[in-house]
């Protein structure tokens, strides 16, 4: 089955990269850009059939490796 994990920096944690990208976009004339945050998407293919078990296992993967809970949030989406 396919699972997508979105790893995002917690909103109270600075994202210097997002800030630099926002400034560059405004420089290029995209004045409407108010804020940018650069995040990470991880696609997994996982053996298994039970979406509930799957979600639990992938959540564990996030806690242990894919995300850093000290500064990142994550969202697990089972896409089928």
């Amino acid at each position, binding site marked *: 089955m396919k699972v997508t994990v979105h790893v995002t920096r917690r909103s*109270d*944690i600075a994202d210097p990269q997002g800030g630099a990208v926002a400034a560059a976009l405004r420089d290029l004339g995209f004045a409407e850009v108010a804020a940018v945050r650069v995040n990470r998407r991880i696609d997994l293919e996982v053996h298994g059939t039970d979406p509930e078990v799957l979600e639990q296992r992938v959540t564990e993967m996030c806690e242990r490796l894919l995300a*850093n809970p*000290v*500064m990142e949030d994550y969202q697990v989406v089972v896409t089928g």
Partner: protein
Amino acid sequence: MTDEEYGSVCTILGREPRPPELAMYSVMWSEHCSYKSSRHHLRRLPTEAPWVVVGPGENAGVVDLGDGWLAALRIESHNHPSFVEPYQGAATGVGGIIRDVFTMGARPVALWDQIRFGSLDDPLARYLFAGVVGGIGGYGNAVGVPTVGGEVDFDATYAGNPLVNVMCLGLLRRDQLLLGTAGEPGSVAVLLGNATGRDGIGGASVLASASFAETSGSKRPAVQVGDPFEEKKLIEACLELFSRGWVTGVQDLGAAGLSCATAEPAGRAGTGIDVDLDRVHVREPGLTAPELLMSESQERMMAFVPPGRVEEVLAAAARWEIEASVVGTVTAGETLRVFHQGELVAEVPAASLTEDAPVYQRPLGEPWWLEDLWSNTISFVQPPEMGSVLLGMLDDPSLADPSWVYRQYDHMLFLNTVVGPGGDASLIRIRGTEKGLAVSTDGNGRICHLDPRRGAARLVYEAALNVALSGATPLAVVDNLNFGNPEKSEIMWQFSETIDGIAEACLGLEIPVVGGNVSFYNETDGRDIYPTPVIGLLGLVEPVPPTVPRLHRGRAGMELWLLGEPRAINLAGSAFEKITFGHVGGRPSAPDAAAGRAAVALAADLARSQLVPVLHDVSEGGLAVAIAEICIASGVGATVDYADWRHLFSEDPHRFVAVVAPADGDRLQAAAARHEVVATRLGVLEADRLHFRGPTTTASVALASAARAWRGALPSRMGERVP
């Protein structure tokens, strides 16, 4: 903040503090900012010398190098933040120390890192080690300050509390020197750099001033994230503002953020200051006054500017593409007033935040286990199997080749690195002059655990000898004092002994301490780390020798000599006992001021003489490891005779190895005799084996095996294929 401290605040104010005021006192009076447990002891350190321009208490120490050149130096720890998030913790540590140095008007030119972790057999230690090295490199490389040396050490004592200490050196001309003062009333406070967010709120008081278990999980402040890109712009912008003379004083925003950056400069200037929090440029809306005052958002500086220069300062900031806002005005009187949303939210005597901070004379007590530790020695009925012992030591991550670490650091930027990482000291030239600056950073928790006073003093002598090995004369010391919980009497005793040890050695060498950092509460679940002072020592050499002695300059046929005591047998606290037997006990030898001075003077003479192609300090691992390192670097074996196998592993101080051509042996002896240092011929560089011959035992290890063990130790443990 304790009830008693709260009472003092009420006395100072004559009333109960408002929340923003309480926030300011709690961070400024935290252990981290106020040195309240250590200040009483730090006074015993010698801090004066004719060449000291700025001593402890400013953002960095400054010493005179002659011809109008000054060096600014500073060392600081980021231990707890690096445990929470190793990459960002180490990165923001690097950023902070760089700001401390350019705050003095100096261009930061080099960094050294002193890092300690638990055993690499532990996955957590590997994760922390990789993250910290990544963070130091990621920030230092990008901000454009080379990391030219340091030390890495692994021991179970650091498993729950890694140590990350970084030292920075800056260079400036005398007329560029700036101090952290608010200047005259009427001066304008301009906040430069990053927008303020909720980063690390209360970090100084929470993370660095309490033990770890108390601050688990949600109590921890938001991780500070470093932005080397912003810092690089900030360095260039500030150095331009300084060189144009538009700034009268400057203070970086580190621990305690805006509170510290307003209270300290005003306190130093004996002025007041009005701060308008509504003018602070922010990253997110809705920050409260206490949050704005305590935020530890990175890459921010406070410049104090004469009113007529404000427009120029703002224009220069815009040109360098950094944000700037006018946030305050220096006032006559001594009151720090803070306004938020149009209201006066704090009104306190500025100097009270620093000068009235509590000073504790915490109880001292010699540890009950010390006598047991000293009598706990190994008695050897027969010599150990020397070949496998040596290979085991070379394969130990603390003694092995550190290039896995420093290859991840830019150590060449600025074209000044004459001797980079991997030797006894680093050597930086000052371009356009004949001057060179040698720096050595040294720590050894094991010997300090066994005897903090002797251990700390030996570190100062070791660092001094290391800089002398590149020809330099010791000038000044900075110290980073990493200790456990100061509320325990035996920890305070270790601290007090350490201070005395550093003071004794500095007096012995006639050099001052120009700055330092104290990190307490390095404990987890009640277990304190070994007392781990780290010494950073700066030396000056002029002119830089045309050929600086290096480990790789040995050739077959050359002779190996030991300079210093040849019959050292004390193995207490040695790497040999720890690695081979897992033993840490006994009492390490005391340093000797006369021998220490003589070794330093001889080493500097030899390095400048061009007589010796190789000089190498005998320290961790003893003579055996020192010789093996020379042989591995030079690609040639050695045959060495010894009378007692313990001579090969003792780490007694004030000793070093020299390699000379056979024809130069007499001149080497003559030089040693002039300094009253014993010179002993150990053997010769030859063939392709490390061959140690004694009366009852011999060891013979193929150089290739030794090199493989030494080079492979770190990469193999960090999951790399080793050829």
